[in-house]
């Protein structure tokens, strides 16, 4: 399929002049490189990174219109596997690499806070990390035990393998011990669930959380760019580009990684709701 890209070389010239006009948006690059840069960058993995990768993609395409960046929202695990197997140029993971995940290198490009959300009608506003762990493990079953309404706690989480779940469970220290009332396969679904169930509590990427739910403070710290960046908000995880060790990377891939880790990307990352690296 890479052939497709080269077939299009005739249109490259025409496209590049347009790119030159809008090069202001990508000042880091000089127009001569952009002219030559073409090809395909296949990315895939974490669904939480969908917004971030989308933003980077859009901005990058303005400078390099002939570079085709694909993104498969298959989940962090699949992203890492894809990078390891070489089927992806860049694997996307919303967690750090595990010890046994060798042969690949992770490059942090951003951070993400994992917000703990409850229904708007829930009087609770703050939880300690311990309370959270007790909720997750099913030790605490009723909101009244935490000073809330007399209602059963509905703990909603993500499916096994999710970067978000992994991040939450490892930080809260409840790996393999969680008793979920419901496992959902996507961030938005968790938010929707919490929104529609007054007794629900769940976790979701900070980038995705909006007004429809209430974000709790954890040990009085609310998740925000600052608190995540400085680590005072504990429940957070990195967004990682995973690349295969020793694999020869195309110019396009290299340029894209450079672009994503550059300061110029910060604004984009922010726009996508994630937290740029400090």
């Amino acid at each position, binding site marked *: *399929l890479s052939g497709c890209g080269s077939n299009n070389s005739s249109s490259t010239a025409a496209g590049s002049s347009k790119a030159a006009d809008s090069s202001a948006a990508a000042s880091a690059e000089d127009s001569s490189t952009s002219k030559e840069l073409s090809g395909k960058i296949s990315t895939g993995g974490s669904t939480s990174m*969908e*917004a971030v990768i989308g*933003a980077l993609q859009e901005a990058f395409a303005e400078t390099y219109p002939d570079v085709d960046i694909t993104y498969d929202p298959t989940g962090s695990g699949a992203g890492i596997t894809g990078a390891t197997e070489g*089927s992806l140029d860049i694997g996307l993971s919303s967690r750090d690499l595990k010890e046994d995940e060798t042969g690949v290198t992770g490059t942090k490009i951003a951070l993400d806070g994992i917000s703990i959300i409850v229904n708007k009608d829930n009087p609770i506003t703050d939880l300690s990390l311990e309370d959270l762990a007790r909720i997750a493990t099913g030790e605490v079953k009723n909101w009244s035990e935490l000073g809330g309404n007399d209602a059963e706690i509905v703990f909603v989480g993500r499916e096994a393998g999710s970067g978000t779940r992994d991040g939450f469970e490892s930080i809260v220290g409840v790996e393999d011990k969680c008793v979920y009332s419901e496992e959902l396969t996507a*961030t938005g679904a968790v938010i929707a669930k919490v929104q529609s169930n007054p007794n629900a509590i769940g976790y979701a990427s900070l980038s*995705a959380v909006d007004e429809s739910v209430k974000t709790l403070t954890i040990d009085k710290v609310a998740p925000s760019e600052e608190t995540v960046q400085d680590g005072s908000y504990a429940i957070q995880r990195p967004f990682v580009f995973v690349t295969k060790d020793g694999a020869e990377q195309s110019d396009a891939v290299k340029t894209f990684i450079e672009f994503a880790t550059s300061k110029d990307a910060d604004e984009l990352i922010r726009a996508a709701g994630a937290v740029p690296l400090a």
Partner: protein
Amino acid sequence: MKSKSRVLKNGLRTTFVYVAAAITMAVLVGIIGYVLYKGVPELSWQLITSVPSVTKKVDGIFPYILNTLYVILLSLLIVLPLGVGAAVYLTEYARNKHLIRVIEFTTETLAGIPSIIYGLVGMLVFCQMLGFQSSLLAGCLTLVVMTLPTIIRTTQESLKAVPVSYREGALGLGATKWHIVRTIVLPSSADGIITGCILAVGRIVGESAALLFTAGFGKIVADTIFEAYSRSGATLSVALYMTAFEEGKFDVAWAIAALLLVIVLIINLAARAVRAKTRKKNK
């Protein structure tokens, strides 16, 4: 004249029928009405024609519509000759009863396989083994396999409905088989084939699980056709899944849902029109 228990039983039966019909209609009106109620207000020209952008904070579903069309186009282009050919083979050429049975059985089997399995196998075969990665092409090929039984079956049905007497008549005039297929059998079963296409389109439009694993989730508008098929891309159904459950943008999700409903409605109406025409012609 009639015994009491007979009257009672009759009344009871009738009541059950009416209750069931009422339930069904309530469900029908409820679902369709609710989706339209939630979705139609969100549908705007703006939404339909825009490319979504995170940076610009723009919502749009234009790429999804385009992808849906691409997928329909290529899938039909491949599946139609294959399916019609297979159906013609089964009804007109095949003489080996066992072979016919086997093919028919496999067709039925294909029709019954859940889309999630198509998704897995499509991912394994088209994306990984054949190296198409997540792309519309891989998605289309998966859909071809999925819709093959639909096309074969409806075509076969309408081929079978072509009276044997037509064939006999043509044979009696000294026509060869292919000639009969070309001039009599296929033209008189065109309606059935079209119905099959429409049904296939319906299935393509509605499919999400299989495409999620094979066509990925791209929202870029490609410059060329080739590019379009080599990239990942989301159809409307996949986009609905993503926007709702991944991104949590329910307003857009409802809009897509309403749009899908409208499309399905159009497809159904088209199928009905063709069927009505067939029925009229047969009379």
